[in-house]
């Protein structure tokens, strides 16, 4: 079975400090990994994805993620967090199946950026 885990329910960081949101995965075969963000009362928004190639993936709003095959991780990072980055972040793995392809999401990590 393929799955993702987000070990932290919440991450607190001061504005201007680096932000890291952790994600580990378990898949058979090559992993296809995504990060989404969810603001209050809004749907999920795509941030970035890793399919193949460079292990450092750059995405929207200054976010990036590093794919680490040996550690089976895909941590989301931002060098300098903003108060507006406070939201719920989801890591997801794209599963290729005979009966349809689908995203399987982690449980989410709430990020709180304090001024």
């Amino acid at each position, binding site marked *: 079975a393929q799955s993702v885990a987000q070990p932290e329910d919440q991450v607190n960081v001061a504005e201007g400090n680096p932000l890291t949101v952790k994600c580990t995965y378990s898949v058979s075969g090559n992993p296809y990994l995504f990060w989404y963000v969810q603001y209050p009362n809004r*749907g999920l928004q*795509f941030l970035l994805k890793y399919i193949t190639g460079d292990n450092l993936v750059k995405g929207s709003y200054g976010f990036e993620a590093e794919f680490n095959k040996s550690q089976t991780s895909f941590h989301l990072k931002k060098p300098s967090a903003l108060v507006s980055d406070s939201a719920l972040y989801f890591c*997801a793995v794209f599963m290729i199946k005979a009966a*349809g*392809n*689908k*995203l*399987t*999401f982690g*449980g989410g990590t709430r990020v709180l950026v304090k001024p």
Partner: protein
Amino acid sequence: EAGVAQSPRYKIIEKRQSVAFWCNPISGHATLYWYQQILGQGPKLLIQFQNNGVVDDSQLPKDRFSAERLKGVDSTLKIQPAKLEDSAVYLCASSLFSGDYNEQFFGPGTRLTVL
């Protein structure tokens, strides 16, 4: 480009009642998804359509949930009868195709409360 539209945004019903949700995907997107997001959890795929055909409904509780996508555009998700544990946000998403790694675009969701 207009996003994924969903209605209603909020719905409160009593257990054993019926409810229906509507989704209009992004124009030209062949694949449509319905997810259930219970508070504190990541979204869980209920059903996936490719045009007007069902690709994956393995996680759909078929004794009470049904969904259709007539003409391969709009979709409705119905619950009949509702149970307390159906309280959740129901998210609709769409993507160009299901067989590649394009990101899914999510609507704002319908928050269902079952009393």
